[in-house]
């Protein structure tokens, strides 16, 4: 069951913004990205945290980062969340993992989701975090 853990600090409204999906399993990344695009969002994709940081530093108009926790590379998803929170605190972050224990807070993210994904739950979570002005 996918779980969207409410954030303690829902935060301010954001401008319409792109979503960066960070996932090293290409078929899962494709599925999530296409579901979000079908819901009307602009979605950018990164295959690992190095790619994600490159996109974020390029100022691609991102408002929300959706990242898997377990990924190869220097940073895992939780490390990426901390990196984002330290440098771009205005961005919303969702972390996802099959291991619910890894999502226990407090952490540098706004919501945690368990895998496998429940797509309606993902969309509700994204909609809530981006707020009305971030609607597609």
């Amino acid at each position, binding site marked *: 069951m996918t779980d969207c853990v409410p954030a303690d600090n829902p935060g301010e409204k954001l401008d319409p913004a792109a979503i960066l999906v960070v996932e090293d399993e*290409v*078929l899962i*990344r*494709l599925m999530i*990205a296409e579901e979000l695009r079908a819901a009307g969002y602009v979605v*950018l*994709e*990164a*295959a*690992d945290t190095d*790619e994600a940081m*490159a*996109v974020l530093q*390029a100022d*691609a108009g991102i408002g929300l980062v959706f990242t898997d926790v377990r990924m190869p590379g220097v940073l895992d998803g939780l490390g990426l969340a901390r990196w984002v929170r330290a440098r771009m605190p205005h961005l919303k972050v969702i972390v996802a993992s099959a291991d619910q224990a890894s999502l226990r807070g407090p952490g540098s993210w706004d919501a945690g989701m368990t895998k496998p994904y429940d797509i309606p739950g993902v969309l509700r979570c994204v909609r809530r975090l981006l707020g009305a002005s971030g609607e597609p």
Partner: protein
Amino acid sequence: MTAATTANETSATVLVVEDEVLIRMVISEYLRHCGYRVIEAASGDEALVVLQQPEINVDAVLSDVQMPGAIDGFALARWVRNNRPGLEVILVGSPTRAAEAAGDLCESGPTLSKPYDPQVVVNRIKVLLAQRKP
């Protein structure tokens, strides 16, 4: 934009294989803007995973020649030729000679050189897909 207007008539799927994320992002977004469904692969290995899924339709592959890992653009084109005959592959390479060599691997020899010119890419895809039609 002319290309966007005409390409909106199709829902063809393009698999973009590029290990440089910012380049992949730009060309993928451009192709989506032109009306294509785009699947992104960050490596030849990821591309093979996608191409081995029978339920995922792919009409054309746009791949960088030089990529890290076991499967570069050449190897990917060879795999497609052997396993997905009829699927169009456009190889993109910086060195001209590499791109020419890539042409030898593809029956129709479609190659492009870097840096990407998005308009040229779209035009090449349109031509290739049009040639496939009976």
